[in-house]
């Protein structure tokens, strides 16, 4: 007759001012590292920030943050543990890095379950590391969280951008708020992505140059935040907050 879990999702998210979904058209563009670093950057600017890893079949944010222990507490639901100044939740707490092959219906159920039982604190922003593409998980989140805003990550690759073009087409067609597109892993600057994004009528938030030092810092947050990658993400974070301030002034 009715799924009682869906009824409380709005209430569970009502303590959060903005929900930013970090998305991509395909995997391998650095979405999870951008999402994690963005959340850390915003938290270090004094905002209360959460990070939710919804890339269920391949969660990696716990590896980027160097999460080794701790578990969500159970208190009339789940209370996300505090990790590196963030309220943090990932299915990896429960799957322990074991292969977890899930079909679409299972992914939908797990998303509904986590959203309905997680009790976030008062947050200025919740950053969501989304599964890549426009499959079941993305469609579920579009349905369940209409207020979600999208930060789309691509690389300079024409192939990566063609997948982003479809994602942007979906979001634009549904009139969802796209805060902007970020071009990651840039080695040879070109204006291809910027031109295409602007031609589609979406904001282009800038470039994150390829940083050969980044890989060696994953799992060590202090080292990660010293990289030129983090510095570039910092500029994206500023653009995100400026855009919010401009929006408030309208």
């Amino acid at each position, binding site marked *: *007759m*009715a*799924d*009682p*879990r*869906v*009824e*409380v999702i709005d*209430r569970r998210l009502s303590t959060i001012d903005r929900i930013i979904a970090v998305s991509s058209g395909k995997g391998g563009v650095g979405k999870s590292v951008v999402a994690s670093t963005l959340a850390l950057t915003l938290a270090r600017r004094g905002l209360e920030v959460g990070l939710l890893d919804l890339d*269920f079949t391949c969660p990696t944010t716990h590896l980027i943050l160097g999460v080794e222990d701790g578990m*969500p507490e*159970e208190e*009339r*639901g*789940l209370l996300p543990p505090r990790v590196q100044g963030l309220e943090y939740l990932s*299915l990896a*707490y*429960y*799957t*322990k890095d*074991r*292969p*977890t*092959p*899930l*079909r679409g219906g*299972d*992914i939908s*159920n*797990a998303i509904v*379950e*986590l959203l*309905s*039982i997680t*009790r976030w604190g008062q947050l200025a922003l919740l950053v969501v590391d989304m599964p890549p593409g426009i499959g079941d998980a993305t469609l579920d989140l579009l349905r369940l969280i209409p207020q979600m805003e999208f930060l789309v990550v691509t690389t300079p690759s024409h192939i990566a951008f063609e997948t982003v073009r479809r994602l942007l087409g979906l979001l634009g067609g549904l009139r969802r708020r796209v805060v902007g597109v970020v071009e990651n892993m840039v080695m040879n600057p070109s204006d291809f992505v910027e031109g295409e994004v602007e031609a589609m009528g979406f904001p282009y938030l800038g470039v994150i140059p390829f940083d050969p030092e980044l890989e060696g810092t994953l799992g060590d947050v202090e080292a990660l935040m010293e990289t030129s990658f983090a510095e570039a993400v910092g500029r994206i974070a500023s653009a995100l907050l400026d855009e919010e301030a401009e929006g408030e002034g309208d």
Partner: protein
Amino acid sequence: MHEWALAEGVVAAVSRIAEEQGLRRVTEVTVRIGELQQVDREILIFAIDQLRTPVMGDARIIVEEAPARLRCRVCSHTWRFDPEGLGEEVSEAIHFVPEVVHAYLRCPGCGSPDFEVVEGRGIWLASVKGLRGDG
């Protein structure tokens, strides 16, 4: 307890349905819980009772339990979920998000992780009965 979060959803769903159906008083609520999630029946009933809204009055709360049956998509073997021997940590993980069962169980017939939960997964509001209008 996690049961409280589920109870909150049940009460919110009952209130919405009562309003949509024009029920002035709910007399009976039937909830089905799947064995896979290992929801504590007594705590769930207690939580629904504590959270009940005025429209639910003294409505009878019925909680039915459904056995969890799994079916392999590769070899079609069907079996019943048995939490015995899973260990506390794994049982707790499945309790919170039943889909993580795919990280821990394999088909006893062929070893595949590609199985489906045919029934008995989580929690479902099966029926809401009540009285309509002013009478």
